[in-house]
């Protein structure tokens, strides 16, 4: 038999099998819109940034398991992504129209994702959020797009014994260091010769750390990332005299030898190992620091640099995608997850500030004499939410570059003028980011 004949027979057999099995059908894969239905059960996809964060992921999974067990109409299917690459994964999925139904979002990104059409308003009854802390709500254009179970608080960790030995006052929540006091404390610590660098502001940090950590210092000087009256321009607030003063001061911390131009990879580890005297970090580091120094450690507000002490506010929150094919199911889930017991769970297991005042009553750590009370008070007293504007991601990346240039010794006025002009041009070219 010739090869050609064999080939023809094989081809015929393939066609026959295909035809007899029949039904070469087109499937409409409804999972592309974050939900699919089979046997009367609608499966909703949920994405979280907690891949690799075992503790928080365990709570996410618990809430999902509880919801799945509580009813039989919907089933939530959780997919975890590592935080560092989460935003890129969401952006790619949005471009492909393959967003899940429920997803978590870093607070400052909510306005942009709402404006870009990734998110739909939650449209949940108002009483769902009656006890919610304002910094844990993603409210844009008067609509609630997201809510979070917790918040975090930046602070400066210091050792009381180290400060009192050199005659420096230990600041309190009500009375932070003034700029003069802070500068003097740094000089005294440096003169003591015990520390190569007395202060760790996390200068090796990248990405969102830079605006999260340094824009409150800028605001404490009297500047800001954008003029919040209409969110249309950064002129005068990001490149005015106060902002230039902030930038000059930041650089002087390096020039005076108080802090490294590029700090160690992990500020908490350096502080715990006694390499630095003051570390600017978040409430997430409290356990590791307390474990080492016990009652000798104090978590204090950043200094009041002229316009009051400030810290960043807003953490991860849950939202609903606008592509979701089963919005009712997603809302059911979100409402279920907004029970006070889950706020308690997140706070208890992770040591984070509960996003719901009703939960505070059930958390001894946040009671008047609780070990984490200080973070709640810091958040309540000093938190400033990052600008609620769809322009925020651009503002953030522009400010990141400006911070790095300033720390590297760039001319403050030139750097901030450039950042301001970039931000203003971006806002203008996006039609003021109108909804």
């Amino acid at each position, binding site marked *: 038999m010739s090869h050609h004949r064999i080939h023809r027979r094989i081809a015929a057999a393939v066609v026959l099998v*295909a035809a007899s099995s029949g039904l070469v059908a087109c499937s409409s894969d409804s999972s592309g819109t974050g939900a699919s239905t089979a046997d009367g059960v609608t499966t909703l996809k949920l994405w979280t940034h907690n891949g690799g964060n075992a503790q928080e992921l365990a709570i996410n999974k618990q809430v999902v398991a509880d919801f799945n067990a509580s009813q039989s109409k919907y089933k939530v299917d959780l997919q975890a992504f590592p935080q560092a690459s989460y935003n890129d994964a969401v952006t790619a999925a949005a*471009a*492909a129209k393959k967003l899940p139904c429920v997803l978590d979002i870093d607070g400052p990104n909510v306005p942009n994702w709402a404006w870009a059409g990734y998110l739909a308003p939650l449209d949940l009854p108002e009483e769902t959020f009656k006890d919610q802390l304002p910094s844990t709500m993603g409210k844009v254009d008067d609509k609630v797009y997201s809510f979070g179970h917790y918040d975090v608080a930046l602070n400066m960790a210091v050792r009381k014994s180290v400060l009192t030995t050199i005659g420096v006052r230990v600041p309190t929540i009500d009375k932070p260091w003034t700029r003069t006091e802070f500068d003097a404390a740094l000089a005294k610590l440096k003169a003591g010769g015990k520390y190569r660098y007395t202060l760790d502001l996390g200068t090796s940090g990248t990405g969102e750390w830079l605006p999260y950590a340094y824009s409150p210092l800028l605001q404490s000087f009297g500047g800001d990332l954008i003029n919040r009256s209409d969110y249309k321009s950064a002129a005068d607030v990001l490149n005015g005299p106060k902002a230039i003063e902030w930038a000059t001061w930041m650089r002087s911390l390096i020039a005076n030898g108080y802090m490294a131009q590029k700090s160690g990879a*992990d500020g908490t580890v350096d502080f715990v190992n006694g390499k630095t005297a003051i570390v600017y970090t978040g409430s997430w580091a409290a356990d590791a620091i307390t474990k080492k120094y016990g009652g000798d450690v104090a978590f204090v507000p950043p200094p009041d640099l002229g316009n009051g002490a400030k810290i960043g506010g807003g953490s991860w929150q849950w939202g609903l995608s606008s592509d979701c094919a089963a919005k009712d199911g997603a809302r059911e889930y979100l409402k279920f997850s907004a029970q006070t017991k889950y706020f308690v769970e997140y706070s208890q297991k992770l040591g984070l500030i509960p996003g719901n005042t009703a939960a505070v009553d059930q958390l001894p750590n946040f009671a008047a004499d609780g070990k984490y009370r200080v973070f709640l008070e810091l958040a309540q007293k000093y938190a400033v939410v990052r600008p609620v504007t769809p322009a925020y991601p651009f503002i953030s990346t522009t400010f990141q570059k400006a911070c790095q240039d300033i720390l590297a010794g760039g001319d403050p006025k030139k750097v901030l003028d450039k950042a301001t002009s970039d931000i203003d041009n971006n806002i203008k070219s996006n039609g003021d980011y109108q909804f």
Partner: protein
Amino acid sequence: MAVDVAVRAGRPGVPRVLLQLGRIVLMLVFSLPILFMIVSSLKPDTQIFSDLTSLRAFLPVGHISLDNYRGVFERVPAAQFLLNSVMVSVVTVAVGIVVNSLAAFALSRMRWRGRRIVLAAIIATLIVPFETLALPLVWWVNKLPWLELNGFSLVLSDGWLDTYRVQILPFIANAFSIYLFYQFFSSIPTELDEAARVDGASWFGIYRRVVMPLSGPAVATVAILTFLPAWNSYLWPLMVVQSEAKRPVMVGIQYFFQLNVAWGQIMAYSAMITVPVLVLFVAFQRAFVNSIASSGVKG
């Protein structure tokens, strides 16, 4: 080889001891980071940092344990990620060698109109960075159909996202591999083809029985140069793979960059994902160097 001869004879004016010293310094420059990674993977985080200022950073001293490796498996599905990457990389390499060598064979051995234009067009694609194609490619793979077996029926599904094929198929045809094979094939005398033709060989027979058996170094080089980007692939799987079950190793490293970074676990995970690459390179090293030397390609 000319290079070997020069080295064996010693360069004029350079004393042998200096040459050896230079080699030792070079060896240390390249091997110390790997040694640091492996040693640090056995230490707790605090010790990694306290050892940094001394030679202890490169020595397995202090509190040594496999805790970081245990931590890696608790934090990420590392075995699944490794398996996925092995599967994606091996298939990409195997199919890539066949497809690219066939294309290069057609370009270098067969005479047809427009051959040079096609070759130029293929080489021209080398200047387009993948990042510029990534988003349009996502759009395309999201629209592409696929035939799936569902029971006894063939079902036409839409979209390749979150599959193994989306991590493999776009990277099979590779302009650089085609060019490398093309260069190598061009160095094989065409008289061999003519002899094979006289013996009744078809074009495919010449490819399979004459050209490919003589192209071991080129195959080894293409294997390494295809394997490395497939193994190191990060941006693309990040964009197109959504479930952990299909995620490759490089995306996995991001799992360790939490607010409190687990440096020991990062070192352990890095050691685990570096070993297969080192093994592959050592296995193909001789052929790889031969091919680079003969084709004049610089890495």
